């Protein structure tokens, strides 16, 4: 049986077990004896993420023969990521303005939710305020002042990426003979890490089962929240599914032509499942890289660079979610947003999803920044906190699908370029 089928079965069984457990009073048993296996799975994936990013980036970049190719791929990556995030945000605004999920929200529910989540909001607000807003902060934060310290902290991925790029560029600039041993060692390490990922993935069906059973049990009591937020919840869900099933396939169709959509979706499915059950795109990165290289034949030099960078700066779904949430809150409070304000939302959501990797509290803190930028009451956050976790799971799946899409597009354009160059070189002698 292929791995993805096993993972899906694990997921389905996890859902079923979770429901049975809530009915039959096995909730505590599930939390004590099943959920830990999910936590272990999550830890294993995170454990391998830092070495994977470092080793694969160094290997990917140092195999480039000239720096111009690196800067070309780099520029492409950043541009495409920003463009796709902008599109996702705009799409979110369009959707929420059309559906207007906030207009029918009952007044008493609003008061009830605000009581319930006051504490969380205060905390997040503190976090949002404490982060320094100087304009170049993003770049300053990207540079580590001690690489060992940065590697010891899973939230400093961008610093590791920065150092890995610096290290690899130095390797490219040196003579082949000077770095031969280092290269050999990184090749070996890369193979070892990829093998470790394979080993971890053997455990994936059980991990996914445990994670999902845990989530269902955790959320069993909150079913009524889903009902109350029904329209909002559905809007976000449908929007995210449209991103996965329609928007990204369209990108692929327009920019690559070659890759069959069904093949793409099938290849990224295991990565999506892992992202869904762990709700962490960093944890899904190892799987995502493996699937892209092995199933979709993305070249290692592209995948090794584009995907780790994507985890930290490309968050289409997060940006999408921020715009929907912001407008939803405005609708509930009966505030009309002008075009200028909506544009501010697009801009802020895009910038914050790119510029704030590793902000503690993740997208909630980002939503606060977006809300304050257009003067919406931060307390409105209370309305959506209840369904944040399940939506976060979906968001992570969408985020890594977006990363894979861009990786495939860049891979295709690099291949085409190489093909053209090769054709040119072939044609040359005839002149």
């Amino acid at each position, binding site marked *: 049986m292929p791995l993805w089928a096993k993972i899906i079965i694990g997921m389905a069984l996890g859902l079923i077990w979770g429901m049975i457990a809530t009915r039959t009073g096995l909730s505590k048993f599930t939390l004590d004896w099943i959920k830990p296996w999910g936590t272990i799975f999550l830890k294993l994936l995170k454990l391998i993420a830092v070495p994977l990013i470092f080793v694969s980036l160094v290997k990917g970049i140092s195999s480039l023969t000239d720096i111009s190719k690196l800067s070309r791929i780099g520029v492409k990556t950043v541009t495409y990521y920003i463009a796709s995030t902008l599109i996702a945000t705009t799409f979110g605004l369009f959707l929420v303005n059309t559906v207007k999920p906030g207009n029918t929200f009952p007044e008493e529910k609003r008061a009830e939710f605000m009581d319930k989540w006051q504490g969380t909001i205060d905390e997040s607000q503190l976090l949002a305020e404490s982060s320094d807003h*100087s304009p170049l902060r993003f770049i300053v934060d990207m540079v580590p002042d001690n*690489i060992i310290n940065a*590697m010891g902290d899973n939230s400093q991925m961008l610093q590791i990426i920065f150092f890995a790029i610096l*290290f690899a560029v*130095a390797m490219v600039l040196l003579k082949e003979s*000077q770095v031969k*041993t280092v290269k050999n060692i990184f090749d070996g390490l890369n193979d070892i890490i990829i093998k470790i990922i394979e080993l971890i993935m053997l455990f994936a069906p059980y991990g996914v089962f445990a994670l999902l059973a845990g989530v269902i049990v955790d959320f069993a009591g909150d079913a009524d929240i889903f009902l109350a937020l029904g329209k909002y919840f559905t809007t976000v869900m449908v929007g995210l599914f449209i991103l996965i099933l329609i928007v990204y396939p369209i990108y692929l169709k327009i920019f690559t032509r070659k890759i069959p959509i069904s093949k793409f979706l099938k290849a990224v499915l295991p990565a999506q499942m892992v992202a869904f059950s762990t709700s962490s795109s960093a944890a899904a990165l190892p799987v995502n890289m493996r699937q892209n290289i092995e199933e979709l034949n993305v070249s290692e030099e592209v995948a090794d660079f584009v995907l780790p960078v994507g985890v930290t700066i490309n968050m289409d779904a997060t940006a999408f979610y921020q715009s929907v949430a912001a407008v939803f809150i405005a609708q509930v409070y009966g505030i009309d947003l002008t075009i200028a304000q909506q544009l501010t939302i697009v801009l802020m959501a895009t910038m914050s999803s790119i510029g704030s990797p590793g902000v503690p509290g993740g997208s909630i803190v980002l939503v606060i920044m977006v809300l304050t930028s257009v003067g919406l009451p931060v307390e409105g956050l209370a309305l959506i906190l209840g369904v944040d976790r399940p939506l976060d799971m979906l968001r992570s799946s969408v985020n890594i699908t977006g990363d894979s899409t861009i990786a495939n597009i860049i891979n295709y354009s690099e291949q085409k370029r190489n093909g053209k160059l090769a054709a040119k070189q072939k044609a040359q002698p005839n002149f």
Partner: protein
Amino acid sequence: MKQKKRKYPLWLKIIFGMILGIIWGLIAVKTGLVNFTEDWVKPWGTIFIKLLKVVAVPLIFVSLIKGITSITDITKLSRIGAKTLGLYIASTVIAIIFGLVLVNLVKPGHAFSQATRQAFQLQYENNIKDSEGIAGQLKERPPLAFFEDMVPDNIIAASGDNSKMLQVIFFSLLFSIAIIILEAKQVKVVKQLFDGLNDIILKIVDIIMRFAPIGVFALLSALIAEFSGDVQLFVALGKYAALTIVGLLIMIFGLYPTYIRLFTKIKTRDFYKNLLPVQVVAFSTSSSAATLPVTLKQCTQKLKISRSVANFVLPVGVTINMDGSSFYQAVSAVFIAQVFGLDLNLTQQLTIILTATLASIGAPGVPGGAVIMLVIVLSSVGIPAEGLALIMGVERPLDMIRTVANVTGDSAIASIVASTENEVGVEDFDDDNDN
């Protein structure tokens, strides 16, 4: 036809950056662009310091291992080690004595007005309490705490902390000695790996140094913008500040050249020309650890000091040799005593020499650096620590010059050790492409 752009040497570009930084800082202060400078210019300076720091620990580790493993016998290693320590202590003692002579001759504290003293004490009360607290903890440590602190109990944790450089040095030494003792074939791959890593890290330093002119520009303009309000402090402390600055300059341009002339065959002109980028970076970052990558690069590639000596002597010097700081402590302690009308007898002055030397060797990476050490020195001879308030205001600019003196001292000692070991002028086959 493409015209070839004229290439300026790196040190010239750095000096350029420095001058432009100062000019920009002054303009910013005059035209109200201080906030703009803080938001958009200063971050590039911060990035420059971070870049230098990120490469410091790997550089120390890799270059020490490479340097020491190229010394094939342990006796030579221990000889170099003993020489390094001996010379570092000697140069520190000389710097302190020089400071004491200077401050006793000029007596900058006698002309200090009572009113200013009280105003300063009020202003810096809190800072001093903090420093006193830390110093108090330090004083209670047992005499061998220095050695205890030098030994890491987890090398990854030590490597992850930029203030634990001495622990990293210790572990690198242990690691290298193990390599020397083993047979060559057992460690062949490890050696090759470290050779490769060493080349890579030096190349990274090259890349970072291309950014140096901009970094130096940003650091200096931010500094000027921040300190523009404190000009009157300088005037009030005029005699003291002037004395310290002149003393440090004499060390940099008088004392070390004498060492170089007496003990090495290196021309003083070459010494200064090649050290200039190091001094400029030290001045603008006021951190000798951040400057270390540059110091190592200039000493091995330009002064032609062999790797085996430079890679050992310089990283050790960053943590234990602080001539400029020791000089500063002696001057400041006596200055404060003079302001308070305390007469220091000969024993007390000798105590200052001893404590300042020990403090500069034994307290590497103490947060707050020289100020904390000064508290220790002050209390060793019974001068009130509140006197610190007098000199806090001009601490930062003096720190910049102290750092220059410190790194110049390290390089001078490295040159001397290398000369006595006949390790100068060895060809360094790394490509250097910056001038």
